[in-house]
């Protein structure tokens, strides 16, 4: 459902994403791993059509993102990093606005809002101004926005960032549940999350894909490694290690 081929993004002289290719099928949950600044968010922004790639192609459900962006975006739900929201709106009016942009009007709109308010446990704050929400609620409101039209493709940039352990668990199981009939990509820093929710994981370092496989097969990449944590540390080079080597 998601096909990414030879994606390259150059900012000035810096190559942020360097020839990244992968595909995600229906029923798969792909974990996106990598150190800070590895190019995770940039890749996701290209997949969602926010950034224009320097070269390469993105195809969602058979629709080319560069050729027919509006059509491709209809099939997509996206939770950007830091969960941006219009601070002057209430939770319900924000979701209503997003529903309208997704082509939901009248009764379908009301139904969609009620559904996601219920799914994301937002009923108690539905008429509260977004400005006054705590971080967990803000995050869930933006998450609710991404699934309001029940999209085939879901792209989540750090969906559990800033949530408490209970909420993290809830979001993780929600992703796993929805993963059965969608194609989902989500990025994270938390490696247990990958084992808990993903059917496959990709590790990105300095703009390149350095590993791609099921969480179990990734563990076997590095001999003697017992956890994904060790694998992650040995195949992505932290800046400090590079300095030491030099």
């Amino acid at each position, binding site marked *: 459902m998601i096909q990414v081929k030879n994606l390259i993004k150059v900012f000035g002289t810096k190559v942020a994403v360097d020839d990244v290719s992968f595909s995600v099928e229906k029923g798969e949950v792909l974990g996106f791993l990598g150190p800070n600044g590895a190019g995770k968010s940039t890749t996701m922004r290209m997949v969602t059509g926010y950034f224009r790639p320097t070269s390469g192609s993105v195809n969602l459900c058979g629709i080319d993102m560069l050729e027919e962006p509006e059509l491709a*975006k209809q099939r997509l739900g996206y939770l950007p990093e830091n969960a941006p929201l*219009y601070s002057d709106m209430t939770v319900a009016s924000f979701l209503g606005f997003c529903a309208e*942009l997704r082509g939901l009007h009248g009764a379908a709109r009301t139904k969609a809002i009620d559904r996601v308010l219920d799914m994301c446990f937002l009923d108690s704050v539905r008429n509260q101004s977004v400005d006054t929400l705590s971080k967990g609620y803000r995050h869930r409101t933006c998450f609710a926005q991404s699934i309001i039209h029940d999209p085939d493709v879901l792209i989540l940039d750090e969906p559990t960032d800033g949530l408490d352990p209970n909420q993290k668990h809830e979001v993780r199981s929600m992703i796993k549940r929805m993963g059965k009939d969608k194609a989902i990509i989500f990025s994270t820093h938390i490696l247990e999350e990958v084992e808990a929710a993903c059917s496959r994981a990709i590790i990105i370092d300095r703009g390149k894909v350095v590993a791609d496989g099921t969480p179990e097969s990734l563990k076997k990449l590095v001999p003697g490694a017992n956890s994904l944590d060790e694998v992650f540390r040995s195949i992505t080079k932290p800046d400090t290690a590079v300095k030491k080597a030099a």
Partner: protein
Amino acid sequence: MSNRAIQNTLAVFKREFMAYFNSPVFYVIVVIFLLATNGFTFFFSRLLDSDDVSLATRFFVWHPWIYTVLAPAVGMRLWSEEHRLGTIELLMTMPVSPWQAIVGKFLAAAVIWLIGLALTFLIVGTVSYLGDPDSGPIISGYVASYLYAMACLAVTSAISAFTRSQVVCFIISVAFCLVIALIGDPGLTQTVVNAVPNGMEGIVRFISYFSFMDHFFEMTKGIFVLRDVLYFVSVIVVALLVTDLGLRSKRA
């Protein structure tokens, strides 16, 4: 335009319009606008002390200067706020074309301004009560005034697409609107013409032709010339095109 395009534009318009109503900025600006228009007309132009109740020279004459400051104050949030909050990333990954969003937002600010301008009806009422004014110049004056405000708003929209700071957008927009008003000033043009070497006069006059002012005053005189209307409309269209360019450059 397809049905979907209209619905998208309307959705963006509605959101933006409500955002104005929910923010104190709108009320502050409308109050300042009314105080300024009424104050200038009654105290500086001494509308009531004169026998001449022409609105062109006592009421509309102040509008360009008021708009130079107030239109950027209304328009500065249009795109800067989207950049600052990061909601631009949401908006641009929705199945909405940049044009639908640009037009929707601009229309919201335009309707807000229409409300502000409509609230100056008391002055028209005063003039009609005291005398028997021609309705022609009043109507063309209002059209000119509204078009002038729209041109300043569109320029502000273009500048706000390039920056995440409302303050930066405000300052640059005011400066831009001020320059484009000043270059049309006949006194200033004459001074510059006298200062530059011979042969450059044509260039100075050519630049001064781009000022909003000439076109504005032609219209307030009651001469409803299509040329002047087209001038303002093309300024608005070009500024919205630049807005699109600004949004693209941020996403490149």
